[in-house]
């Protein structure tokens, strides 16, 4: 029977173990009111955070409420363009979708005036010379290329100030 022959032929090839099925997903992102303030700030080349009315902590980016107190944050705070590297790692591993050449420095940057750090790329310094406490400044894209996205910040670079004292940022680790 033809069927039997087909089955035998398929059997000779062995089972199908893996099938690659690439999937694409385009999605719309709705930032909401609080993150819009931060993103609109980036569009103007500014870091905008928010202060909690209860504990006084300044969040950047703010999500519109204080995670500790559960109250809305309403007061906008413009933060400095400079900050401190609290900690970091040097990424030397390639992965799908990577947009930055390895090795690169991935640092936690605590902007002056903020009470929480965020992740930033450090450039204009060899990867083996980055230090905890290093003072850095944001380098923005050209004004005509600013968008409401962190892509507006090209990277951070050392600004030449002496390193911050460990005691001054150890509570932010």
């Amino acid at each position, binding site marked *: 029977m033809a069927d039997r022959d087909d089955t035998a032929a398929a059997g000779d090839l062995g089972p199908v173990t893996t099938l690659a099925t690439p999937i694409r997903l385009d999605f719309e*992102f709705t930032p909401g009111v609080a993150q819009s303030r931060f*993103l609109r700030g980036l569009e103007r080349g500014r870091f905008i955070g928010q202060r909690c009315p209860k504990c006084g902590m300044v969040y950047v980016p703010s*999500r519109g409420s204080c995670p*500790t107190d559960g109250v809305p944050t309403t007061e906008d705070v413009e933060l400095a363009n400079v900050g401190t590297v609290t900690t970091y*790692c040097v990424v030397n591993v390639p*992965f*799908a979708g990577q947009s930055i050449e390895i090795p690169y420095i991935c640092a936690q940057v605590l902007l002056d005036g903020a009470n929480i750090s965020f*992740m930033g790329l450090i450039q204009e310094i060899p990867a083996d010379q980055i230090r905890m406490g290093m003072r850095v400044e944001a380098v923005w894209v050209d004004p005509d290329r600013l968008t409401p996205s*962190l892509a507006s910040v090209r990277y951070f670079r050392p600004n030449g100030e002496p390193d911050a004292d460990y005691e001054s940022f150890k509570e932010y680790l």
Partner: protein
Amino acid sequence: MAERCAVIGVGQTHHKAKRDDVSIAGLVREAAKMALADADLTWTDIDAVVIGKAPDMFEGNMMPELYLAPALGAVGKPMFRVHTAGSVGGSTALVAAHLISSGIHKRVLTVAYEKQSDSDAMWALSVPQPFAAPLLAGAGGYFAPHIRAYMRRSGAPEYIGRMVAVKDRRNAMRNPYAHLHIADIDMKMVEESMMLWDPLRYLEACPSSDGAAAMVLSSEDALSGQYPPAWIHGMAMRSEPTMFAGRDQVNPRAGRDCSADVYAQAGITDPRRQIDVAEVYVPFSWYEPMWLENLGFCDLGDGWKLTESGATAFDGDIPWNTSGGVLSSNPIGASGMLRFLEVAMQVRGQAGEHQIGGARVALGQAYGGGSQFFSMWVVGSDKP
């Protein structure tokens, strides 16, 4: 008063880089059948199934529990899915245990898995978002800065991470189910392996594994099985926000609160002395000294000294991860359950070559996400 609950059956697959001999359904069924056999039960004896895995985006199968129901004998029975990132294997076991301790069910099958060869976890963990820079290079990129912070804070010498990497891989040589069996591993091999996320080298990081774990939990009046039950003496979960001012990412409060709760339930006041063996989620070498402190096995800043002294080695006074741990097998969703399962094996006396003689009280711990989910249990050979 809550009902007593015990582990009466355990099963796990051989963890490998690529299990291309089975589908996901085949993988979970393999572990589940072993757990049922160990408990001397069949599918029909099970009242409900509780399943967990890492985020669905890893393999790209949304709500896989729906299609896995037939493979796990769960058609027509209650089936629950648990989501708590890397800690999920532990949380899944706890949800199953709650179904027993609350008196709702008598016997619950709990299963956790990951098929990393079907997935791209690095990609899934590094998807670009408009409010964050596209820098995150997988879990290692997230945890490496916090490891550096621990090194600075504690003054630990850099070789401590390598010691853990060697210790857990040597332990894995005693575990036939472990993914990595690196017979000639030593400090030099770890030191010479590629730097991935400075300060973390390749051999200080967990592998990417396919695997599943399963347990049968039962109430006191439904005990069965090949080995004595592992009684649950304490269990708890805690979580905390990923971002808040003053968050201690090296020594998260959720972890401290979780262990305090579990120890109070289990009557543990001195973990190092009272716990005989522990399986703790250490996906990157430095998390051993960090969690030694977080779990109260020593004072703050002394975790690395405990590791350095050999206390956590197989022949130490508080062996950690005698199975080889997450550093030797990482089917992500199952990795947490393996910690819970391995300590049940220890107090049941069924851990084979990696059995710690006379183990009566054991701690299993899992953490996940950006160190914001914690789950733990203490199991014992004595009825609580």
